[in-house]
Structures are given as C-alpha cells and as structure tokens.
C-alpha cells in the first residue's frame, strides 16, 4: 500500500512527527488546496467494515481530524435520547438510599425512538408529548414453598429458593401510556431487562413513579446514546530494507499478530489486512538492527471509527443522527449570521 507521504503521521521511538495537516491554500507553491466539494467527494471514502446489533466499525477516509472529531463529539454528547429524570418515591425500604436508587434508574437505557418525543426544558409542564411515565413497584417476601424440611434436600438454598422478588430489576419498570402515547409507541421499556437496581429482603418494598424525558449527553452522560464512540488512525508499516531471513520471526513478533507475514523461505511481508489491526507498539524500534529497516506511521486522514450504541438507536443510525445534529447547528448559526449581514453597515458590537 503506497500512501502519499504527506498523509502520514510519523511515529518514532519517542516522538511523533507531522501531526497536523498542511494542505491549506498558500502553503505549497503552485497548489490550490482551497475548499472544493467535487475534489473532496473524489477523495472521500466511507466504508462500513463490521456491523452487529450493538456496534459498528466504519472507515472515514479523506477528511480532516476536526471533522471526524466533530462527529465523534456529537455522537457522544449531542445526539438526543431518553432517560429517567424525575423519580417520585412513595416507598423505599431497601438498603439503597432514594437518591442512589434514583441515580441508578436514570442510567437505564430506554428503547424509545427519541424522534417520537419533544424535549422538555426546565419549567415546562409534563405532557404526553415530552414525558414518559413508568411505575416501579416491588415487594419482597419469603418463599412459602421453602420451609425447614426443604433444607434436607437442599442444604444450600439460593436467594431464589428462599425469597420471592429479592431483586429489583430494570425489567420491573412498567410503562404507563399517557394521552396519545399508546397510539404512537408500543412496548416501551428498558433495552436490557436484567439490570439489577437493588437487592431486597422479605418485608422490603419499593413503590415509585418515574418520568423519562428527552435530552442530550452534554447535560448528563445518562442521555449519551453511545457506550463508546472512538476513532483511531489507520496504521502504516513500511519495510525499507530486507529483513535478515534468520531474524524474520523475531521481526514479525514485534507487531500485532497477523500484521507481518513470514513465508516458508523466511521473506517478510506486510499483510494489508493485518496491518489495520496493528497497535503500533513501536517494539520494533527498540531493536538496534531493526530500527532503521522499518518506518512506522499512521495515515492522518484515515479514521477507523468504532461506535457502540447503548440506546434506542441502531448502531448504524448514529452517524446519520450526528450529521443531522451538525446540520442543525450549521443552520442555527447561518440564520444568526444572515441577520448580522442584513443588519450590516452598522453592526452593534458586543462587550466581552
């Protein structure tokens, strides 16, 4: 794989080089480098690599770090989701304090499409358009089927044998449809039904009403739609001079498994697919003989995104949602900038 050296971030034993992109107008003589949509589209590659029901890995090639980072930041902090925000406690005799339990409830991912609800600002009245209501009611008791004589057959009884309802689970959330909600959505609840919220013993009980609202991750991480949204740069390994055959295996061991292949004759080759997964540990640069035979780098504009959804969004929906949010921000700014330019001639300047 021959990559334009301008696209490479050099990785040395103790330093990195050429971190920033230099393709700006005026930087290289006789080169344009100004923004050109057609040119951008030609260079742009977006390729989904792996997809599961919970996560996605895709390559975004040909964009600047500022753009890739904007999407990453938006996926984490600005794509809206729903989470429990208000907890009305009527009874809680478990060992978990009200505020701790309320916090735990807030963190439960809900399986509601956020597009179905409006966001609710502080002070807004709750309506069927902006709030979901849940009930949480559980009482623990002794299991009447288990008594002293059962101990002879089962000398080490589990909590399940001894008690009924000894665990408060996310699956115990009961959705109370309000107004038109039952027409617009079905089967509202947690994405995972077996999250333990509290442990109970006979006589303890929980009775709560919960209100879930729509908001974004920058307000509180419980509204973040992702578990992780990260990217890394595609590694690039260049062998500059042939590796001695007798040390070929040693050389291959300096890299992640699969990145370097040694054939029967002992000739070393870089495996394209394996290189992608190399950690660029720089182990090879510690060897006095090897260090001048290779060049380690990463490709500056090749972003390998890895996104895990932890919300109602399917993993493949998250980037489109982030793009939508970005475009909203742009149009908001444009409206304001337009106003300024129309009011121009005499624009009032603000104090800092």
């Amino acid at each position, binding site marked *: 794989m021959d990559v334009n050296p301008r696209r490479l971030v050099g990785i040395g034993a103790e330093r990195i080089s050429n971190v920033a992109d230099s393709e700006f107008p005026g930087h290289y003589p006789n080169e344009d480098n100004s923004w050109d949509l057609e040119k951008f589209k030609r260079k742009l590659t977006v390729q989904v690599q792996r997809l599961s029901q919970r996560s996605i890995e895709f390559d975004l090639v040909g964009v600047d770090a500022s753009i890739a980072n904007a999407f990453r930041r938006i996926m984490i902090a600005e794509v809206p989701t729903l989470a429990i925000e208000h907890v009305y406690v009527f009874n809680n005799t478990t060992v978990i304090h009200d505020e701790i339990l309320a916090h735990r409830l807030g963190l439960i991912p809900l399986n509601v499409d956020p597009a179905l609800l409006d966001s609710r600002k502080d002070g807004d009245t709750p309506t069927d358009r902006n709030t979901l209501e849940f009930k949480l009611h559980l009482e623990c008791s002794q299991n009447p089927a288990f008594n002293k004589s059962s101990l002879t057959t089962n000398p080490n009884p589990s909590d399940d044998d001894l008690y009924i309802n000894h665990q408060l689970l996310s699956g115990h959330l009961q959705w109370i449809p309000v107004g038109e909600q039952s027409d617009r959505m079905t089967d509202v609840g947690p994405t995972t039904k077996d999250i333990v919220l509290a442990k109970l013993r006979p006589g303890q009980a929980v009775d709560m009403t919960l209100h879930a609202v729509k908001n974004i991750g920058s307000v509180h991480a419980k509204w973040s739609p992702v578990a992780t949204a990260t990217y890394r740069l595609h590694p690039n390994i260049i062998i500059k001079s042939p590796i001695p055959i007798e040390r070929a295996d040693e050389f291959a061991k300096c890299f992640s498994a699969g990145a370097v292949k040694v054939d029967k004759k002992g000739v070393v080759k870089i495996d394209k697919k394996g290189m992608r997964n190399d950690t660029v540990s720089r182990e090879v640069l510690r060897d006095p003989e090897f260090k001048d035979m290779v060049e380690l780098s990463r490709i500056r504009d090749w972003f390998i995104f890895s996104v895990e959804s932890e919300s109602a969004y399917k993993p493949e929906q998250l980037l489109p949602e982030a793009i939508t949010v970005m475009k909203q921000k742009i149009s908001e700014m*444009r409206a304001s900038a337009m106003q300024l330019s129309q009011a121009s001639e005499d624009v009032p300047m*603000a104090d800092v």
Partner: protein
Amino acid sequence: MSTTDQKIRILKGASADLSAATYQVCNESHTMGNALRWILMKNPKVEFCGYSVPHPSEPNIQIRIQMYDNLSSLQALLKALDDLENLCNAIGEAYSESLQNGDFERWDEKS
C-alpha cells in the same frame, strides 16, 4: 454574561468593514469551533483564522477571522457554513451508500 439571545455576536474591536472580526458563538464548543476553523482556513481569501474556548465552564466559543483584500469576514463565515453543510451531506451520502452496498461483515454480538 450574555445580554442578548443572539447565537452569534461580533465582539468589540472589529474593523469597520468587518475584514477582521472576532465572533462569539453561544452554546457551541470545540465541536463546531475546530470544524469551522478548518473550513475557514481552506478559503484562500482568509488570511488568518483561529478559535478559542475562553473558559471551559462557559458554553461559548470565539472565532477570529482576518481577510485579505478587505473582504468581509462575515461573508467568509457564511460561505464556511455552506461548505460545511455540503461536506456533511457528502459524508452522509457516502455512508448510506456503503451501508446499502452491504459489503461488510455482519456478526452477532452477545450482550
């Protein structure tokens, strides 16, 4: 702090023809700041562009734009916003195309 509910304000000290100005954008962060800075720097008429987040607990950014030939920095900002939107559309289209192609590994992830 902010006396108006405007999204963008021009800070004191801008030149009269707006060829050099600092814009304060409310409720934005590095997300938009860095992206805008980059696309503004791609404009050959922009002499200088930089952004800052003056204080981490205030949700504002400041974007400084200086233009060549006494051009309007406000027009450059508007162009940058258009360019950024085109860029977003291009990425969105390329992504959905790749998703529809189905040329990728599907796997079952146990939760």
